[in-house]
């Protein structure tokens, strides 16, 4: 089966600019997650979707981050305006969403803020 696809792989922008990331989950996976992984740390959940509804966005900085999952499949994560501390790898993951089902991760987008 095809894995979780993310694009772009790398993005360099200046602070205060905007950026968007795209994720295509594994076919049939109802649950989609966006994580932020700062260098040297474990991934931190930003937002979790179940189909096209938000389950948990408690750690999403809503003043600058937004995410949507239209039609319950693909998802985009946007940052506007970007800050220096947003430099990180943004990982998308998906799962079937039922009990004890593993999360499958994409290879992420590495964002550098200048």
């Amino acid at each position, binding site marked *: 089966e095809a894995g*979780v696809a993310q694009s772009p792989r790398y993005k360099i922008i200046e602070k205060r600019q905007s950026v968007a990331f795209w994720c295509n989950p594994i076919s049939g996976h109802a*649950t989609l*997650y966006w994580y932020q992984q700062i260098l*040297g*740390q*474990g*991934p*931190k*959940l930003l937002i*979790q979707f*179940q189909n096209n509804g938000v*389950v*948990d966005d408690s750690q999403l900085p809503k003043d600058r981050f937004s995410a949507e999952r239209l039609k319950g499949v693909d998802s985009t994560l946007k940052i506007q305006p970007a800050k220096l501390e947003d430099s990180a790898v943004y*990982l998308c*993951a998906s799962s079937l*969403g039922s*009990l*004890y089902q*593993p*999360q*499958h*991760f*994409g*290879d*992420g987008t590495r964002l550098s803020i200048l």
Partner: protein
Amino acid sequence: QQQVKQSPQSLIVQKGGISIINCAYENTAFDYFPWYQQFPGKGPALLIAIRPDVSEKKEGRFTISFNKSAKQFSLHIMDSQPGDSATYFCAASIDSSASKIIFGSGTRLSIRP
């Protein structure tokens, strides 16, 4: 209480040796404990997972030991190989309520040939 504490931060093991990574948690509601392996430039991949109703789970060279009373769990990699060199993350979640996974801070493992 939502944290998962992982140690050591980095580990160097000789080829053929045993690699041991330890984790501890506070929230007794956690009921699913996966371990993820991450290679540079790649996303984390599920390695092995355990639920608290068992004390040990083994898959090939990888074993999770779980101590519910001490709220600790560990990953043992037997006969460590250079290809095992990666960053390992322990994690925990309250999976019965589909809550988010909380990741540890990671252990960078290097296997010397």
